[in-house]
C-alpha cells in the first residue's frame, strides 16, 4: 500500500501527543538504529525500536499502538543510554503504552487477577508491581 504523506499526516495530534507524553524530540532521531542494535528483547518485537521512531516521524501512530513491541520493552534503558541524539525510546514506549492503557484501547495487557493468583507467591513483589504498573497502567 502506498503511504500518502502530507503535513497533516506527519504532524497529527496523536504524534504530538506521543512527543509530549514522552518528552522526546522525535525529529532528533537520525535512524542510526543503535537502539535496535543493543535492545536485549528486540528478537521478540514485531517492529524494532528505530522503526517505531521512524513510523512516528512519518505520522504513523496506529500501527505502533497495535504492535507487540510496546509491551515487550522491559524498560532496561539501554536504548536511551546509548542513543547518540539523546532520544529515549524507553520513554516513547511508556508514552505509547500510556495512550493505549489510558483509553483502555485493548484492555489490560497483563491481567491483574491472574498475575496475583499465579505469581505472587513466587516472583519478587517488585516484578509483579512493576509489570502491573507498566503493562496494566
Amino acid at each position, binding site marked *: 500500500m502506498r503511504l500518502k504523506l502530507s503535513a497533516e499526516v506527519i504532524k497529527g495530534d496523536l504524534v504530538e501527543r506521543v512527543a509530549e507524553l514522552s518528552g522526546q524530540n522525535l525529529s532528533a532521531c537520525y535512524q*542510526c*538504529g543503535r537502539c*535496535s*542494535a*543493543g535492545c536485549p528483547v528486540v528478537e521478540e518485537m514485531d517492529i*524494532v525500536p528505530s*522503526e517505531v521512531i521512524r513510523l512516528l516521524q512519518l505520522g504513523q501512530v496506529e500501527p505502533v499502538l497495535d504492535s507487540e513491541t510496546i509491551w515487550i520493552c522491559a524498560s532496561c534503558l539501554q536504548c536511551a543510554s*546509548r542513543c*547518540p541524539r*539523546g532520544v529515549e525510546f524507553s520513554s516513547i514506549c511508556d508514552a505509547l503504552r500510556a495512550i493505549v492503557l489510558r483509553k483502555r484501547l485493548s484492555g489490560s495487557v497483563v491481567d491483574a487477577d491472574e498475575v496475583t493468583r499465579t505469581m505472587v507467591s513466587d516472583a519478587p513483589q517488585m516484578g509483579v508491581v512493576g509489570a502491573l504498573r507498566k503493562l496494566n497502567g
Partner: protein
Amino acid sequence: MEHRIGVFVCHCGTNIAGVVDVKRVAEELASYPGVAFSTDYTYMCSDPGQNLVKDAIKEHKLTGVVVSACSPTLHEATFRRAGVGADLNPYMVEIANIREQCSWVHQEDKPRATEKAIKIIKTMIEKVKQDEALEPIAVPVTKRALVVGGGVAGIQAALDIANSGHEVILVEKEASIGGHMAQLSETFPTLDCSQCILTPKMVDAAQHPRIKLMTYCEVGDVAGYVGNFKIKIKKKAAYVNRDVCTGCGLCSEKCPSKTDSEFEEGLATRKAIYTPFPQAVPNKPVLDAEHCLYMQSGKCGICAKICPVDAVDYTQKDEFVDVEVGAIVVATGYDLYPIINIGEYGGGKIKDVVTSLQFERLLSASGPTSGVVRRPSDGEIPKEVVFLTCVGSRDPEHHKAYCSKICCMYLTKHAMLYKHTVHDGQAYLFYMDVRTGGKGYEEFYQRAAEEDDVLYVRGKVSKLYEEDGKVIVWGVDTLTGQKVEIAADMVVLGLAMEPNAQALELAKKLKIQVNEWGFLSEAHPKLRPVESLAPGFYLAGAAQGPKDIPDAVAQASAAASKVASLFAEKEYHREPIIALVDEDECAGCRVCVSVCPYDAAEFDEEKKVAHIQEAICEGCGACIAACPSGSVTQKNLTDDQLFKMVTAALED
C-alpha cells in the same frame, strides 16, 4: 562642526527586511539630529548598493556614514573602502549590526526588533558624530614566517612561503616532520602510497635554503603583533647533539631498552634512543629519557660509548631560542578521539578492536606486519573484518557532535585494501550515511561495494565484546529492521578526529580563537577560511576542522599565499583605534604603565608624563579604564562616545 551623517539601511534580501521594518527605520532616522540623509536598499554590499553610498556621500556632502547591515566583521572593510572611493576617511564609516544581533535573533517579535534596530543605529550615529578621521598606523613587517606543525599542511605551507621568496621557520614537536600522513598506507581515492608522495616533500622542506627546520621543538612565549612577533622556541633536550650526529643508527641498533612505538601506534616497539621511522626527516635520533636505562638508573650508557662521533650527551638541557617573524601559520593537526572513551566498544581492552591509524600501520608495507593484515591478539590473518564509522563522531549526547568527514572514505579504503590482500576475507562496513563529497570519492565507494564486495550495513553498532577469540558485533541493519550479529576476527574503529591536545594550549598562548570542540576558528566561515580573526595568524589543515589530505594541502597553500600577500607590502597597516595620553592632564602616576599588557605605555622621565607607543598599542583600553585622572582616551572610542552611545541605546 555641523554633522551630516548618512544612514543606509540594508534589507539583506529578506534577512533583515523580513523582520525589521526597514522603510520605517530609514524614515525615522532621517529626522534624527545630525542625519542629513537616510535611505534603504535591498543589498547594500552589492555594487549598486556601494555606489549608492558613494553617490550619497558626494551629493549630500556627508561627514559620516552608518551602514546598517550585517556584523562589522563581515563588511566593515567593504564599506570603509566605499567611503574612501568617495573621498571620505574610512574611519568615518561605521556599521550598525542589525542582522546578527537583531533581525536574526528576534524573528518572533517584529515590532520590537524594529525598535531595537533603530536604537542600534542611533548608537552608531552618536559614535560616528565624534569619530575622527584617522590614518592606519604603518609598521614594518618582518618578512619571515613561522609554521607550527610539520604534518603535510605545515610542510606545504612552509614550501609555498619559501618558494615565494621568504624565510620560514618550521617547528615540529616530534623528532621528525611528516605528521599522521607519514603513518598512512595508501591514500584514497587514488590508492597511491602515502610515503611515496610525502617523503619527497619532507626532503624538499629539509633542503630548502629558506626553510629552517626545527624538529623536537615547541613554541614557548609569544609576544608582539602582526608583522612583528617575538617568539621563544623551546628546543627539547634530545640528549643527542643532532648537529654532529650522522644518523648512522648504531645507537638505536645497540640500545637494549624497548618501549611502544608511537609511530606504529603501539603495534611494534622502538628503542629508547630512536628515529621515529626509517624515512624520518631529519634522520637523526632523539633519546627518550623516560625509557633510557642510563638516564633512569645510571647503568648502560651503550649509545654514548658506541657513537662514532660522540653525539650522545646525557647532560643536555632544554634550550630556548628567540625568533622574530611577521606571520604565523598554525598547522597543528589532529589526534584520534581516545578509544578509552568508548566503553561499549571495549574501551581499548579488546585486543582485536583497533583504531583506524593502527589499521593503517597493519596495511603499510613498512609497518609492523610488512603489509600483511594480521590481528594483534594472535597474529592470525583475519577473515571477517568489521569497520565502524562515526565512532565518537555525530554523537552530541556522549562525544563529538560533528562529522569527522574523512572516516567514510578511509574506512572504505581500509576495507578495499584489506580485500586486496586477503582475497577470501569478508569486509563489513557499518555506516549511517556514506559521505563521499570529494572528487572521485563516490566512484571509489561504488568500486568498494561492487568490485571488492565490501558489505555496507546501514546502522550503528551498539556493542562489541570478546568471546572465544572472536569479537562479537551487535549491530543492526536499519534497511531491513534486523538486529545483526557478526563474530568478527577483527574490528576497525573510525574514531572521531579531534584537535591535537597540545594545539589547544598553543591556541591559548597565541590568543587565537577556537570553537567549542577546540578547532581553530577562522575569521569568516566562507570568505576568510584560512585566517584567524586575530591578525597575523593563518590556519592550515585539520587544526581548523576535520580534513582530508587534498583539503589540508589546499588550505595550506591558501594560508601561504595570504602570508605572501602580507609580506608583499613594505609595511603593515594597523588599526589606529589606540590609546592616547593628554599630557596636560597626566599626573604621572604610572598606573597605565603597570596595567598595559604590551608595555606600550611608558613613562617619559623628562616630561614626567605617560606616553603610549602607537606602534605597540593594541587598543585594549585597560589603561583608559585604570587612569584616575581621566587623561587617557581611545581614538574613536572615547568615554564621551561611549556615554552618548549608551544614552542612545536607552532612548525610547
